[in-house]
C-alpha cells in the first residue's frame, strides 16, 4: 500500500484518495509503434496470473471521446483547443477509471499518458511548462515503458499495419511537407525527439521496439514483473 502521488495538485475533491493497492503502468511510444497489440497481450497475460486489469487510453472517455473524434474530422480544430479537449478527455479517464481502479487494487495499463500529450503539444508550439501544468492533476505512474523505434521502423510499421499515413499522425495540421509522407517524416521525427528528451527527465524504461513483436513482448513482461515484485 502506498499513497497516490500526483504531478501537481490532485483533482478537486480527490485530495484525500488515501492509500492505494493498484499499479499504474504506462506504455508510451509514437503512433503505430504497436502499443495496442502489446497491451492487449499484456492484459491477457496478467489476467492469467490472476490480476484484474483495466486497459485505458486517450479519447476513450465517456465525456469527451466522441466529441474529439468529431472535432478532428473537421478542418477548424485549433491547436490549443485540441490540447485542452484531450486534457478534458484524460481528466475524465483519470477520475472515472484510473483513480477508482487504483483504489480497488487493479493494474491499470495505460495506452499513452500525458507524455504523448506533451510531445504533441510541444511539437505544435505550446509552452512545455504550460501543458505540464494543465496535466498536473494526473497520478504519477509506477512505470513508463517506452517503446522506442527509429523513423524507418515506424514508417514500415505504419504501412504494414494497413492503416497507413493519416492526417493527424502525419501532423498535416502543421503542413510540414508537401504530402502525408513528407509531413509524417518531419512530424514523427520531432515527436520522437520529444519522447527522447522526456525519457531521462521522467525515468522511462526504454524498450527497443525495432524488433519482432515477441521479443518486445518478452521485455515488456519482464519490466512489469519487476514493477509488481517491487510492491
Amino acid at each position: 500500500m502506498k499513497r497516490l502521488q500526483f504531478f501537481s495538485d490532485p483533482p478537486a475533491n480527490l485530495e484525500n484518495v488515501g492509500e492505494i493497492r493498484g499499479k499504474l503502468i504506462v506504455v508510451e511510444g509514437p503512433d503505430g509503434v504497436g502499443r495496442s497489440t502489446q497491451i492487449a497481450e499484456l492484459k491477457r497475460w496478467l489476467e492469467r496470473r490472476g490480476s484484474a486489469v483495466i486497459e485505458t487510453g486517450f479519447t476513450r472517455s465517456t465525456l469527451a471521446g466522441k466529441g474529439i473524434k468529431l472535432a478532428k474530422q473537421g478542418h477548424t480544430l485549433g491547436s490549443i483547443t485540441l490540447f485542452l479537449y484531450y486534457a478534458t478527455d484524460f481528466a475524465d479517464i483519470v477520475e472515472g477509471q484510473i483513480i477508482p481502479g487504483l483504489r480497488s487494487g487493479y493494474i491499470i495499463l495505460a495506452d499513452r499518458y500525458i507524455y504523448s500529450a506533451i510531445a504533441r503539444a510541444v511539437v505544435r508550439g505550446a509552452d512545455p511548462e504550460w501543458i505540464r501544468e494543465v496535466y498536473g492533476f494526473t497520478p504519477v505512474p509506477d512505470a513508463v515503458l517506452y517503446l522506442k523505434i527509429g523513423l524507418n521502423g515506424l514508417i514500415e510499421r505504419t504501412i504494414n499495419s494497413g492503416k497507413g499515413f493519416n492526417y493527424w499522425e502525419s501532423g498535416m495540421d502543421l503542413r510540414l511537407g508537401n504530402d502525408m509522407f513528407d509531413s509524417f517524416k518531419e512530424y514523427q521525427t520531432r515527436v520522437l525527439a520529444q519522447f527522447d528528451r522526456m525519457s531521462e527527465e521522467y525515468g522511462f524504461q526504454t524498450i527497443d521496439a525495432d524488433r519482432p513483436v515477441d521479443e518486445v513482448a518478452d521485455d515488456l513482461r519482464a519490466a512489469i514483473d519487476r514493477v509488481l515484485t517491487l510492491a
Partner: protein
Amino acid sequence: MPLNGLTDQKYPGRLFCVEGIDGSGKSTQIALLHEWLRDEGYAVKFSEWNSSPLVKATTSRGKKKQLLTPTTFSLIHATDFADRTEHEIIPYLKAGAIVLCDRYAFTAFARDVARGVSPRWVRQLYRFAAAPTVAFYFRVPLDVALDRIVMGRPDLKYYEAGLDIGLSPDPLESFKLFQARIVDEYERMVDEFELTVMDATKTIEEQQRQMRSIVKKFLPRRRRLGAGKTEPKTEIRHERQEIKSEQKSA
C-alpha cells in the same frame, strides 16, 4: 490590467468583456454597447461564453448526464474558450476589430474555484487568453440578482445551482450558497486583475452611459478597418490609471 498570467495582446483590436453573477444585468449592458459601437461605425465581433460549435455538444451532454466533476467542468469550458479564442477572438483582434465578450476567463476563475478547483491551476489553464482592454465587473447584491434570476427562471439546472458540490439538497438554497461563493471569488479578483467595477443597482441607462464613457477612451481613432496603416496599440495601463483618478474625483 495586470496580466497575472494572461497573454498580453499586441494586436490593433480592442477587447472588452463583462463579468458578474447571473442576474447582474451584464448581458443587457454588453448588448447595448454592441449596438452603439456598430452605430458609431466600428467593426464589432461578439463572442459568448460556452458557445463553441466544436465543444458545445460535449458540454451539454456532460451536463445533462451529470458526468462533470469540478475538474472536467473546468477543462471543458476552457476547451470551449480556447476554440473561441482561436476563431472568434484573436483573428478579429488582429484585424483591428472591437471584440466584445459576454463572460471571459474570470467566469471560470470564479465558478471553478467556487467548486473547489485550485485557483492557481485554473489561472494557469487560461494563460493563453488574451488580456482584455477593460474587464467590467457588474457588482450586485446577491438578493437583487437572485430575485431577477428566480423570477425569470424557476427551474434551476443541476450545475447552475451548484448541486454537484453538495452545498444543499434544495436547489434554490444550493443556488444561493453557490452564487455567494462566486461573488466572493469575483470580489477577490477586483484587485488581482483590476476589474472595472460597475454598480449594477443603478439604472440601465446610467450604467450604459458610464460604460460608453470608459470604452470611448480606449477606442481606436480610425473606425474603418484597413484605412491607412495599422494603429499601434494604446498604452492600456497608463490610460486606465487616468480613468481611475477621474472616477475618484467624480
